């Protein structure tokens, strides 16, 4: 199989970097939105739910194109961000945005499910002991939904690692800048003699994904033991 070329290594690291950032920036908003959907009733709740799930049902290309329209150099948000020195289009940070948006529904779903499973009677008990709503969230709801938050984060990471359509539409696949692992694999399958390299990168992608999922499962098991109070 031979060694990886510098370009392949760059694509691998870029993908890992983008997936890590996408997970990091999505986590807090993901927890917040999941909590709103799981515990609050407000006008527009159904709309928020639908909006969050949109990237899951839209073709990724469409999501990427919408991002380009909004966050591109001439997009309304893109121009505002450019004024304060943040450029997303054709930049790796744009890949982070595209991956975050695409992975967000999975993250929210996992967290929301585990929050809905937290017994509201425990939250009432906490309030009865003097805990204001923010403290009930931090000391009861959040720790008890930690297993779901963890698996949501890993799902988000894995999805971000494999995201292709929205990313390539929004930021293209510039080698060394925005060419992530899936984009590099796709590129290699389009040129003669690229098969061996494509296969190498495919194995890397599979390896990273398996490691992430295994690590999350082990971690989630430990956390679940901790949360449910079984002695580890």
């Amino acid at each position, binding site marked *: 199989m031979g060694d990886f070329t510098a370009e392949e290594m760059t694509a691998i690291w870029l993908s890992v970097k983008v997936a890590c950032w996408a997970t990091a920036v999505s986590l807090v908003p993901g927890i917040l939105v999941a909590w709103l959907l799981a515990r609050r009733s407000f006008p527009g709740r159904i709309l928020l739910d639908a909006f969050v799930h949109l990237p899951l049902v839209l073709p990724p290309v469409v999501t990427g194109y919408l991002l380009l329209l909004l966050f591109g150099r001439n997009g309304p948000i893109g121009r505002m961000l450019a004024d304060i020195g943040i450029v997303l289009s054709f930049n790796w940070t744009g890949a982070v945005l595209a991956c975050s948006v695409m992975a967000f529904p999975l993250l929210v779903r996992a967290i929301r499910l585990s929050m809905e499973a937290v017994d509201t009677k425990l939250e009432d008990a906490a309030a009865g*002991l003097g*805990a204001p709503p923010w403290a009930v969230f931090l000391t009861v709801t959040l*720790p008890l939904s930690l297993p779901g938050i963890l698996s949501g984060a890993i799902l988000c990471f894995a999805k971000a690692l494999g995201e292709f359509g929205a990313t390539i539409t929004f930021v293209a696949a510039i080698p060394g800048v925005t060419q992530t692992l899936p984009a590099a694999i796709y590129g290699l399958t389009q040129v003669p003699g690229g098969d061996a390299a494509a296969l190498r990168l495919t194995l890397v992608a599979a390896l990273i994904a398996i490691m992430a999922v295994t690590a999350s499962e082990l971690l989630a098991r430990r956390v679940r033991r901790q*949360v449910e109070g079984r002695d580890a």
Partner: protein
Amino acid sequence: MLDLSLAHRLGDFTLTAELRIGAGVTAITGPSGAGKTMLLSLIAGLTRPARGQISLNGISLVNTETKQFVPPHRRHIGQVFQEARLFPHLNVRHNLLYGRLFAGRNRIGPALETIVDLLDIAPLLHRRPRDLSGGERQRVAIGRALLSNPTLLLLDEPVSALDPVRKAELLPYLRRLRDSTGLPMLYVTHQREEVAELATAWVRVENGMVTADQ
């Protein structure tokens, strides 16, 4: 002294109550579905009454005329439920001290040791709720409520989930509590005999009507 006069509807069920409750243990009895739990939920602030007012020691908790409502976490009302509702991710000690996090400097209640001795739970302090028996869990739940330094304690069928032996084990602790703290308690049960020895006053709830009972 708890003072309440209110009416509340849920579907086609209406609860009306006019009550003054003082120190000691007030037993609230009545068949299932009579509105006992709704009454407690109104007092604790988990439900807003459609109409009426509640005050505790002269401080108004809710008044629908003036649209005033004190949320549950500012009412200083301790609650013990049929299921202990201990926090599964905290050990017994941290469950007991939970209310203290929010008590504020001038509301520090009884010492942990005092409550631990009162309820004989010293050997349990480092255990997790799931490793406790039903009776032990209830004692911890009572201790947790007491350590939040409440001005009123609500007990909603606190021994109903226990078998007769555990039940008989727990009742003496409640008697000890009554005699050593002077904390006013509302004890809800559908079995009169259960509180016969404990109660100092009686309230009857039937078909949504709350009446003092002799």
